[in-house]
């Protein structure tokens, strides 16, 4: 029996490769200095959805909320096998906290309509809150299972999976539809497919087309720009290469619940902590070296 999956994905700064320039003096992230990547656990979520499709049939739709540039991760979803991708972009959604974000995503998913499973990565590596998935489930009125490590089976309208709660695992069963958050050890995401790269590398969202046109035609009038955007958009649409793009009006979202207006989170204080390396110990890869390491760890009470 086929199942329709929706995957929420996010483009994030690559915080795994932090360098000195990557942090502003006030302790906030200098996004310009960090490459933008596909949030790692969202790749696991996408893989989980693609595996459901491999096993049972159905469709995989990926959605991302973000600036026009976020279409990059949606293209990557296409390269890896997603059937449909949708970019949710709107200036009024900028600076949304987790509450506003989950509200917007819930409206987008309602707009999509029918689905069986929503997959989210456990958390994004920029905010590390792990809140959006659970909040989204609440707003959609769905059961949720977090920290999925293995999908065991889907049978009719019941799903059974193993979740890792950090101390061990438990096998949980639920009714569909459901929202599942996926952790990094759940799977190894498949690589992009060469033919899909060749086919979809030209896929663009309208916002990207507009940015491109404005860059290429700096002296054109607004009218000319819009005409050119429309022309390129229609041409891509005809070739099946237009990435769907929705704003908050399209998904029927209340502007007061989006962006800054809809975000009660206030940053109280930012503390800049700089770790400094104080020398290192070299442990030789010998029996004696390992014994010495274990002794030290026991003395430091790291091993109990």
């Amino acid at each position: 029996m086929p199942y329709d999956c929706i995957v929420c994905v996010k483009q994030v700064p690559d915080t795994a490769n932090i360098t000195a320039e990557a942090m502003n003096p006030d302790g906030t992230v200098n996004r310009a200095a960090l490459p933008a990547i596909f949030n790692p656990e969202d790749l696991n979520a996408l893989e989980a959805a693609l595996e459901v499709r491999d096993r049972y049939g159905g469709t995989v739709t990926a959605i991302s909320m973000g600036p026009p540039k976020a279409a990059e991760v949606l293209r990557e979803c296409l390269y890896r096998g997603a059937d449909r991708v949708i970019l949710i972009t709107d200036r009024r959604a900028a600076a949304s906290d987790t509450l506003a974000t989950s509200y917007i995503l819930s409206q987008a998913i309602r707009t999509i309509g029918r689905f069986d499973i929503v997959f989210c990565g456990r958390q994004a590596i920029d905010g590390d809150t792990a809140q959006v998935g659970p909040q989204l489930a609440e707003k959609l009125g769905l059961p949720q299972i977090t920290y999925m490590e293995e999908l065991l089976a889907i049978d009719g309208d019941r799903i059974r999976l193993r979740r890792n709660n950090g101390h061990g695992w438990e096998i949980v069963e639920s009714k569909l539809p459901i929202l599942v958050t996926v952790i990094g050890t759940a799977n190894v995401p498949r690589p992009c497919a060469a033919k899909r790269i060749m086919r979809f590398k030209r896929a663009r969202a309208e916002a990207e087309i507009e940015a491109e046109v404005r860059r290429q035609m700096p002296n054109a009038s607004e009218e000319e720009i819009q005409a050119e955007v429309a022309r390129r958009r229609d041409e891509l649409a005809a070739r099946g290469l237009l990435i769907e793009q929705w704003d908050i009006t399209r998904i029927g979202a209340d502007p007061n619940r989006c962006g800054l207006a809809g975000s009660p989170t206030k940053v109280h204080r930012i503390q800049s902590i700089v770790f400094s390396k104080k020398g290192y110990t070299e442990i030789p890869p010998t029996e004696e070296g390992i014994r010495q390491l274990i002794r030290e760890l026991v003395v430091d009470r790291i091993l109990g």
Partner: protein
Amino acid sequence: MGNYFLDNEDIQFLFRFLNLREIAQLQEQDTPNGQADYVPVDIDDAVDNYWRVLELVGEIAADYIAPNAERIDREGNRLLEDGTVELHPLVRENLRRMKQADLMGFTLPRKYGGLNCPNIVYSMATEIVSRADASFMNFFGLQGIADTIYAFADDAIKDAVLPRFARGEVTGAMVLTEPDAGSDLQAVRLRAWQDHNGQWYLNGVKRFITNGCGEILLVLARSEPDIADGRGLSLFITERNERIRVRHLEEKLGIHGSPTCELVFEDAPAQLIGERQRGLITYVMALMNGARVSVAAQSLGIAEAAYRLARNYAHTRQQFGGPIEKLPPVAQMVVDMRVAIEAARALVYYTSRVCDLENNNQRLLEWKADLSAEEKQQRRQLARTLRRLNSMLTPMSKYYASEMACWVANTAIQVLGGSGYMRDYAAERYFRDARITTIYEGTSQLQIVAAVRAAVSGTLESFLAELESRRFDDDKLANLQKALIEAKPQVLEAISFTKRQSAGYLDLVGRQIVDAAIILICGHLLLAQAEKWDRKRFVAERFIRSQLPVYRMCCEQVLSGDNSPIVVYEEIAGPPLPVS
């Protein structure tokens, strides 16, 4: 998250240097695309696709294949009692990744679901994959089997088999070698017979078959029992079934991930490829030529892996109060490894490019419907020139790159010293893996036989003349070029001297002549690269300055006329030893 393409500036440089637009133009001309939705919109788009495919190969090699290599090497594959082979789970995993990434129909036309990449891009991909795991190249790098089917089989076979290759559902094997037919394939005995309905069957034993447990087998068999030589052999295609058993899985020095099988055929049904009697002389020769370039690319990948390990070790290993790379003998080893790799890479990629020119020219000549008489004439002429050039460059590439890989892998162990000899580092695995490259797809000695015959028949002279015609504005490069040009008469003299000797002398000194020729060719190729990238000036200079003395030595050895290995063999080697 690594990438074996994006971290390799030399391959990226060559991608730009070798004018892939020209190749793409040929490759895309009149190519069968079927209903494919990933056809490039223009030539730049095609070249962009090549780049992206290599990026993808680079990522898969670094992130998926390389981490599996050590365990696969240690644990190998398993022969089951029913005569089938169970591939190591990580080999299967690697294959699954390649399949997911659409990379198993690399050079096939889009009509069959392939990527329609040219040979040069395939060589780059093969190098990248081999750097991650040389043994896995024998799955990825055997796509020449599908190419051979495409080139010579009839449409029914192509339609049935090629899409399955492209989807990654099947892998193939070239089933040529037998216990008494190794280098001498004319001695193949495996029997092909036909029943009264015209159905062919295969009977006999094949040995040392790389991936012989693959699903699609191309088998060289004797269809004409009355004709004892190569003209009695035909090429057959058969799919693995219960009448084909793997009797034995070889235990090898290296490439443990690649199953090497002894196969028993017991009246296995098969289909003829192309025409009878052309099996060895036409089809297998074409197949082997492609495979030789693949092995050359594989050699580059192993050498690159070994070099990187040694280079890092030389930088981090502290002795005598500093990193060992500061010690001149170590610095020399590291630098000459790198120079050797770049020289071989220049030759192999140049050769791959000539293969593309030749293959596409041939394809257009045979398939393009609206060829004018004049164009046909031109293409025929071009085909002859390219065939001659390739018959020299392909064996040279295979010989030079594989010998280079053995030397580089050996030297890498030396740089690592005692650690290199231990299993703690991959150096010993690279050395074991490299060792096969001078043997399979024709030994170095056979490559030399082929290359030297082409070289002494005028091909070398005309090719060198073409290379020498380049003009350098830069004084340093012009001077180095002059040194190469002034050295040339010596090898020509050695060749004409050889022609005046007994018949066996050409084979005796073939190695020296080919070595000398390769030094001149690679010198010119590196100089041309040096014009476009300053770093290559140092590489070209080091290569030419260190190799010209070797060149003179080779020529002198030829001119010495010493043929003692032939005439006083027993006096030196002694009488045959008693068998213990």
